[in-house]
Every structure is written in C-alpha cells, then in structure tokens.
C-alpha cells in the first residue's frame, strides 16, 4: 500500500496540485524527465493543465516509471490544404511526428501543429507557437464524451418516449427521466418564457441534460472535461444567443434600439448599453459554465495531489487520508455543481428567450 510506484500510478489516474496554498510545502524531488514520475509541484501543475485540455487519445492511466500509457488512440481528422485522417497513435503521445500526404504534424501542449519532418515547434519571443495550426476536426476525447452523452440521452429518452405507447406511466429509467423533463418544462421553461414556451422546450431540455450529463461524466475517473472547455461552452451560448435574437419580437428590438418611455438623450445613451447587453448575456453564460466546471476539476485534482505534496510532512497514510476526505467532500459538492450549472444555463437561456418573446402591454 505504501509502495510509491503504485501511489504514483494511482496519482496519474487521479491527479493533482493545490495551487497557492501548498507554497510552503516541499514536494519530494523525483524524476522530472519527459514521461517520468510526477512528484514536483510544477509537474503536478502541468498534469492538471494537461487534463483540463482536450486530448487526441483516450488514456486511462500511465505508468510513470516505464512511460507506458494504458488507453486507446482516437482518429485524427485535420484540414490543411486537403483532408488528413490518421490514428492518433502516430503521435505516440506527442513523441512522434505524424506524416500525412507529404505534410508533417506534431502535438504541442495537446494541440496539433504543422511542422517540418523533424517536428520542430518554433516559438516567438512571448512563447507563442508560430507554426501553422490545421483545422482540427478530430474525434478527440471531448468529442467522444459528447458522442457518449448524445448516445445516452438518445437511448434514455427514446425509451421514455416509446414507453408511453404501452402504458401511461413510464417504467425503468423513464421513472427518473420523466420528473426531470416535467421539472424543466414546469419550473424552467414555463415560468421564464411564458405562454410561448412550447416552441423552445426541445432546446431547453436538450441543453439541460446535455450539460448535466457531461458535467457528471467529468466527475468520473474517465476524466472528461467537456463543459470545462471554452469551445464547447461558446458553442452552447451561441445557440442561445441566436435563438434569442431570432425569436425577438418588435418590442424586444425596440427596447434595445429605442427604449420607450425615456427622454431622447437617454434613448441614445441606452442604445449602445442595450446592444452590449445582447452580447454580455450569452457571454456570461459561457464563462460561468466554463469557469465553474474548470474550477471544480482543478480543486478536486489539487486535493488529490495533496497525497504527494503533503507526503513529506505527514507521511503517506495521513496525507492520503486528508486528501481522500477533502476530495470526497468536494466531489459531493461538485455533484451539486454539475446539476446547478446545467440548471443555471438552462434557466438563464429560458429567461433571455422569455425577455425576447415577452408581450408588452
């Protein structure tokens, strides 16, 4: 149990670092070469950063000593003057340069760059890469997560829908799903949107369960971080944005560009503020979801990393116990946050749509 190798392997699966509050703690020095064991604060930090990002292969865990990864590769689909499709095993977890149709690609910080045959990554003075980025439509780990979620949702709700054909009362998984559907309809859509809510229910239901299930998947040891990815939340918020603007009625636009009931100078002042408000609302949506989920992942991983960072002070048993207790507690909170963020996203979407379709008298 105190075998450090096993502990380190477990670590790689679970993850690490408390950010500021462990400054005073010494990390035990260890191998810091590429693919080695993770011991220092910097390595832990890097590991967390790595986890937060999308990945081109699906790794369950890594043996730090031998550098072997247990998992499976995923397809890489790139667009760079033509379509390039190959398996991510060609990157060998960032160690190799992949060649496709006379072009060379390499991974750098989990992102694909075009390189020369040697896989050289050029950095400018500020440390930014100058290599060209191909358009990356790969089936990454996040895409796998989204596909899995979609599949789960489709199977679950299809069975609920089919169940109604036989009896009026759902059976099995439908017993859990039906109250949730009713909840979204009666507690989120109807009160916020008003009488025209029916048109928007499919979107609200889909986005609610999509975010919630992705959040929950992120809490499993599979290590998805889909809703903590800015590209995903931007996508969701954009849909809400366009849905709001396209369903906006005359009064909605009038309130933005020519606010009724105020003097003309005020109308002119309010116009840019209201226009800005159109964009800040969905922006707040996307940042809120992204930041909450990312923060949750960082906190949980940091608490787990206490096993390493506090090992020299308290010994492996005590640090593991503290780490487990705290991480367990935070994970319970994260379960709540997973629901809460899905609820808030859906609720605010409904609220914005409701503002756009509201009838003024």
């Amino acid at each position, binding site marked *: 149990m105190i075998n450090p190798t096993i502990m380190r392997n477990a670590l790689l699966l679970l993850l690490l670092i408390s950010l500021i509050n462990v400054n005073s703690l010494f990390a035990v020095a260890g191998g810091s070469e590429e693919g080695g064991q993770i011991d220092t604060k910097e390595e832990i930090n890097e590991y967390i950063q790595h986890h937060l990002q999308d990945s081109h292969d699906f790794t369950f865990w890594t043996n730090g000593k031998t550098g072997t990864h247990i998992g499976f590769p995923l397809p890489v689909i790139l667009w760079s003057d033509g379509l390039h499709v190959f398996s991510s095993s060609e990157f060998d977890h960032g160690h190799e340069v992949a060649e496709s149709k006379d072009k060379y690609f390499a991974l750098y910080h989990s992102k694909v760059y075009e390189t020369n045959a040697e896989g050289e990554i050029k950095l400018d003075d500020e440390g930014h890469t100058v290599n060209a980025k191909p358009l990356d439509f790969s089936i990454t780990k996040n895409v796998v997560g989204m596909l899995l979620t979609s599949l789960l949702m489709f199977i679950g*709700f299809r069975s609920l829908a089919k169940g109604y054909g036989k009896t009026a009362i759902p059976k099995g998984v439908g017993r859990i799903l039906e109250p949730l559907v009713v909840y979204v309809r009666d507690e989120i859509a109807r009160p916020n949107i008003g009488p025209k809510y029916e048109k928007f229910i499919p979107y609200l239901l*889909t986005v609610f369960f999509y975010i919630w299930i992705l959040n929950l998947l992120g809490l499993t040891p599979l290590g998805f971080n889909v809703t903590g990815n800015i590209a995903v939340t931007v996508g*969701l918020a954009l849909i809400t944005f366009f849905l709001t603007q396209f369903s906006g009625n005359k009064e909605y636009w009038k309130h933005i560009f020519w606010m009724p009931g105020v003097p003309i100078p005020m109308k002119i002042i309010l116009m840019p503020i209201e226009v800005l408000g159109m964009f800040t609302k969905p922006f707040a949506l996307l940042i809120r979801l992204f930041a909450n989920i990312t923060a949750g992942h960082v906190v949980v991983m940091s608490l787990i990393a206490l096993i390493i960072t506090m090992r020299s002070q308290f010994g492996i048993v005590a640090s593991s116990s503290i780490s487990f207790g705290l991480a367990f507690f935070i994970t319970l909170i994260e379960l709540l946050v997973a629901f809460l963020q899905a609820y808030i996203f859906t609720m605010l979407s409904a609220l914005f749509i409701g503002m756009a379709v509201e009838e003024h008298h």
Partner: protein
Amino acid sequence: MEQLINDFSPGLFFMQLLIFLVLLGLLSKFAWKPILNSLKAREGSIADALQSAENAKEEMAKLQADNQKLLQEARLERDKLLKEATDIANKIKEEAKSDAAKQADRMISDAKNAIEVEKKAALKEVTTKVAELSLEIAEKLIRKNLSDDKAQKALAEDFMKDLKLN
C-alpha cells in the same frame, strides 16, 4: 483571456455545434415530441378525470338531496293517508253507531206499534166475544123469559150500555 483564446479550438467548436444540433434534431423528433405530447395527454386525462369525479360528487350530492326530499314527501304522504284512514274509520264507526241506534229505536217503535195494534185487536176481539157472550146470555134469557117484551128489551139495553162502557 489570452490563454482562453489560445485554448479555443475551432475544430472542437465545430464538432460540438454539429453534435449538439444533430442531437437536438434527433431528440426533438424522436423523444421530446412524443414525450411532451404524452405528458400533455396524460395531464389532460387526469384533469378530466378529476373534473368528472367532482361532477359525480356533485351529482351524488344532488341525488342524495333529492332522495331526502322524496323520502320526506313520502313520509308526509303516509302521515296524511294514515290520518285520512283513521278519520274515515272513525266516521264509519260513528255512522255505524248512530245507524245501530236508529235501527234500535225504529225496532222499538215498531214493536210498540205492533203491540198497540195487537192490543187493539185483542180488545176488539174481547169486545166481540163479550158481545157474543152477552147475546148468548141474552138469548138464553129471552128464551126463558118471553113473557114481558118490554122488560126484556130494557134489560137488553142495560146490558148493552154496560158493554159499551167497557
């Protein structure tokens, strides 16, 4: 912020939109629509059932009130009938009584009359008998005493006078 923009992957953004919109379309058609329709139908039927239960309850209460009223009316009717019957019975009894009394009176008076007639008839018979007897007596007397007509005649007259007086 710069980190965020750097982390933003256009490819993932595209894949996410694609997956989400396809999922939205599929679920809308194959799941949300039937689910929401079924829910609505079920809620409608529940509301209907509750309404009809309420109606039935009202109907029941009305029926009960009607029954009560009918019962009350029946009771009154019964009382009335009973009273009438009693009255009639009493009347019949009274009539029977008075009839009987009249009958008795008439019979008594009839009997009296009959007695009177009988008495008179009897008296007449007696008178006749007496007269016959007298005549017989007189005859016998006459047969014995034919000597004096005048005296005989006066004697007969005396007899007659006495008879009449009786």
